């Protein structure tokens, strides 16, 4: 089954150049937007006012690139069934299970990328443990935000993607060594934000993804969709 899912992942992505799609253009715009913190960080005219953020190009680029790869994978490989799957001998329940497995497989693949990113950041870039812990949890949630239906663009998913990336990025304000009182408040505040804002949004998104999977597992809905 894993071989089949992997083959599906590799071969059934969207073939059209990503920039030719509406989502691709949004992705491109977001990618440029994500470059903004780097520009703020490294522009000498501005960075002197933002004293809390460390000038670590490699660290920022690692975060940006890994988040972007996951994002690209999410939009290039939406959870859906090609028409042939609706013609193969499967009933609705089997199609739903297949879609669920595909979704979990893709999400795990993204989580694996996030895990590698966190390891690199922790071991090579000496990022603070609490920051890494936050980025890891935040990144894991980000990993599960796969696109399910091509037609339906969930604003919530875009918002949570945006919040996830920025809140992860802002964890770099923490010093790599001992935390001071202000830093601890930042850590607690971040985790409260994670628990009270991001997590409920994430749970609601997962629920709607589950609904979408059920929706596209039925022949007519999935085929027309």
């Amino acid at each position, binding site marked *: 089954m894993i071989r089949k899912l992997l083959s599906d992942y590799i*071969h*059934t992505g969207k073939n059209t150049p990503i920039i030719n799609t509406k989502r691709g253009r949004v992705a491109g715009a977001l990618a440029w937007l994500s470059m903004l913190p780097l520009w703020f960080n490294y522009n000498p005219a501005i960075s002197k006012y933002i004293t809390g953020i460390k000038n670590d190009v490699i660290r920022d680029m690692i975060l940006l690139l890994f988040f972007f790869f996951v994002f690209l994978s999410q939009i290039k490989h939406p959870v859906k069934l090609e028409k042939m799957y609706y013609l*193969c001998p499967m009933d609705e329940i089997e199609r739903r299970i297949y879609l669920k497995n595909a979704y979990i497989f893709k999400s795990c693949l993204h989580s694996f990328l996030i895990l590698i990113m966190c390891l690199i950041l922790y071991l090579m870039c000496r990022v603070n443990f609490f920051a890494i812990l936050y980025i890891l949890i935040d990144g894991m949630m980000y990993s599960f935000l796969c696109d399910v239906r091509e037609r339906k663009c969930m604003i919530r998913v875009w918002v949570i993607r945006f919040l996830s990336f920025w809140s992860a990025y802002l964890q770099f304000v923490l010093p790599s060594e001992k935390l001071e009182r202000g830093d601890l408040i930042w850590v607690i505040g971040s985790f409260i934000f994670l628990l009270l804002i991001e997590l409920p949004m994430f749970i609601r998104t997962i629920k709607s993804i589950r609904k979408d999977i059920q929706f596209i597992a039925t022949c007519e809905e999935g085929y027309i969709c």
Partner: protein
Amino acid sequence: MIVFSGINKGLGRFELKDISFNLPEGCICGLVGRNGAGKTTILNLLLGLLKPDRGEMTIDGMSYAQDEKRIRELLGCVLVDELFIPQLPPEDNGDHFGYFYKSYDKESYVHYLEQFKITGRKSFGKLSKGQKLKCQFAFALSTKPKYLILDEPTANFDPEFREDFWKLIKEFINDGTRSVLLATHLTDDLDRMADELIFLDKGQTIYTGDMENFREHYRILSGERYLFNKIPKQYVLGMEEGKYSSRALVVKKRSLPEGLTSMSPTIEDFMYLYTRGDKNDQKTFK
């Protein structure tokens, strides 16, 4: 046997109205009609891709609601859409989707591919349109279906392969337990090969039944225009008026006016003349 009874399906402005027909075992059935007549919608309903709004459809006594998986084992299809994964070679596509079929026979699939001269590891997406259809046809045959559903396959086949295709279709139904439903615009072959015919127009069945009955039921008359005035209007389904003589598609009656030449219609003549006589309202004969 495939049974459609009173099937209705609305898709936007288009509506399939009260479609009823039986497709028995051991026959080739042609599904014909002009563009937008509802052929593909019927195929999609038959393949379970769409659900009817009203009416009942059974395949060997089973319905999609209860026995979807068993029904799908019985159906093999070749559709205009490219069903295979473009990045994979045909052989790998066979492995990929054959996994879901109990009766998929890889050897037979490879054999058909060789027979159709599709060899090598070229990806499916890089094949020509005709080759793609041949791959799908090979796959459909290798899953050993009971019913073969084909949507416009012959249009993209070269003349040489078209003969082979019909030979394979004949072999397929030879044992009398399997059937083929073929939607097409190229009706010449159907005239020779089809046992059953479903003619659609504007989402309605105009004719359903066997070809013999079709040839008996309708006539094409040709002769001078004034002679057609002797035929009651409700029997004339369509007419083409020429400078010196006219041609009309009529429902066969006991006696036809003298002076007119009568012949059995081909499917193409029927389609052509019927669509010319669109203004008639009383045209549905079953």
